[in-house]
């Protein structure tokens, strides 16, 4: 095979694999929506499961929707107040210590790769150790543990692009480093920070493996941090394991709800990210 035909052959392959990726995304979204939209109803979104819900009778998934939102908001907030200062510290305080900062980045990159089920198991050990039951709080802590690395690295990437000269001139004018961190660097990297928050929130709302052990599952809407809570991914998972078709249909409808939430978050962060350019 000569080079010309070889190139042609591979160009076709490359084109096909690009099409494949777009096609798969469309297929995922369309097949879930196609199956889920017909069973989606207003009552499903606004009621909690009634008596025979898991046998295909009345009720909705409001408990899971609210639970997921509580959980993700809590975890994102916690991860933010931990991750944001860490990223600032790396870029404003440790700016002279290149090796150290790179080592920290390395650790967070590696932590980013740790599977969420491992965090779930760890959260469970902690719970047993502290004698707490599965609760919203335990879930929030576990989920925040695994989104902190994402938060740190995402904010860090946008802080990295703030010009170094800004730091030097602010220092020479007598600003303290904390003022530089929060008033100058955070403002410069504002859009990056928002994108990081949305990214973490999306991760938090979609993860099932880490909340499986720690958040429990209940049909009620939690009223305090110490109560267990339902979450959307788990509600999809449980409903889909049911042998009853009506319940399975509702799992697809719940999947539609989850995928719409995630798509909205995706679009939102794209919109915010694009305004930068």
């Amino acid at each position: 095979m000569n080079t010309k035909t070889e190139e042609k052959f591979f160009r076709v392959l490359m084109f096909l694999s690009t099409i494949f990726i777009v096609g798969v995304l469309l297929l995922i979204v369309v097949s879930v929506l196609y199956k889920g939209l017909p069973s989606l109803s207003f009552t499903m979104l606004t009621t909690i499961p009634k008596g025979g819900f898991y046998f295909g009778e009345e009720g909705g998934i409001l408990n899971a929707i609210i639970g997921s939102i509580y959980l993700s908001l809590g975890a994102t907030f916690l991860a933010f107040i931990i991750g944001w200062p860490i990223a600032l510290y790396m870029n404003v305080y440790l700016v002279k210590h290149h090796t150290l900062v790179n080592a920290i980045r390395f650790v967070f990159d590696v932590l980013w790769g740790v599977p969420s089920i491992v965090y779930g198991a760890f959260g469970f050990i902690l719970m047993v150790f502290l004698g707490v039951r599965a609760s919203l709080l335990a879930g929030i802590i576990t989920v925040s543990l695994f989104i902190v690395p994402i938060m740190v690295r995402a904010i860090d990437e946008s802080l990295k692009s703030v010009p170094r000269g800004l730091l030097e001139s602010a220092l020479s004018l007598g600003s303290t480093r904390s003022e530089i961190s929060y008033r100058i660097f955070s403002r410069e990297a504002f859009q990056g920070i928002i994108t990081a928050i949305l990214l973490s929130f999306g991760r938090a709302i979609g993860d099932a493996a880490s909340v499986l052990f720690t958040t429990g599952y209940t049909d009620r809407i939690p009223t305090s941090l110490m109560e267990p809570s339902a979450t959307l991914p788990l509600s999809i998972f449980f409903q889909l394991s049911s042998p009853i078709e009506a319940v399975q249909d509702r799992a697809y409808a719940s999947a539609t709800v989850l995928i719409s939430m995630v798509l909205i978050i995706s679009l939102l962060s794209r919109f915010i990210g694009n305004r930068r350019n």
Partner: protein
Amino acid sequence: MKHIRLTRYRKWRNVFHQSWMMIALLAMLFIPLVLVAGLIMKSMLLLENHPLFELLFSSDWSPLSSRFGFLPFIVSSLWITILSLLISAPVCLLTAIHLTQYAKRWVLRIMHPVIDILAGIPSVIFGVWGILVIVPFISHQLGPLFGKSVSGYSILAGAFVLSIMIIPFMLNMLIDIIKAVPNELQEASLSLGASKWQTIKFVVVRKALPGIVSSFGLGMSRAFGETIAVLMVVGNVTRIPTGVFQPGYPLPALIANNYGEMLSIPLYDSALMLAALILFLVVLMFNVFSRFLILKAETH
């Protein structure tokens, strides 16, 4: 000359913020250590009674009679991980080359959101999609094609769903890595009379090879730890799989499936924590190795 003095308040505020930042950083760096320590502590209970070798290489899994052989789960995990990489690696590499070398700007403008959205889809959705599309496809089309009647819940289904899940992750890295190959190198190659394709094959890919390998390594470690999506389509049968159409039972699925009953059977929780430990160590190894490779490639 007039000194600009920090008021006591500003100084205090700086100290406060700096301490909080430092505490947060140290705490987060401390967490992996606590995590490993916790997992080791929990799995010690099991390791005291059973030698590690027996646990890893025995295929006898019956928690009720206190026999814990992890081999079926380890083998399933390996099958699924390697198979998913075999599917996704060529697709990712080809697409990355296409997007960085040949594609028009408008294609890139479509592909970036596509990759981002695909990366953001929760794993449970991939599982739902697997049940809706992949499992029936294997059971109705692919199985009969090979003359087999299968349920579809199989290693192959798990691998296929996984391969789609790791595509955006690997593709993003590959695009960055290939973009980082210096333009001068390509220009030098082109000016020597090499065609574009020869340049890509012998210069771009060659130069980016460490990065390409490490992105595959990271993709593999991601696949190894993925739980819910695989759990939903893989069948979960405790037996060493001998073919891709057979059901499997990978390690993460083992942990996730049995969390409910693990406290009622002695040593069961310890065994599951050992599974989590194995998972953690394998993923850690892959990650450290791959990231190290990237770092080395960047500095040279």
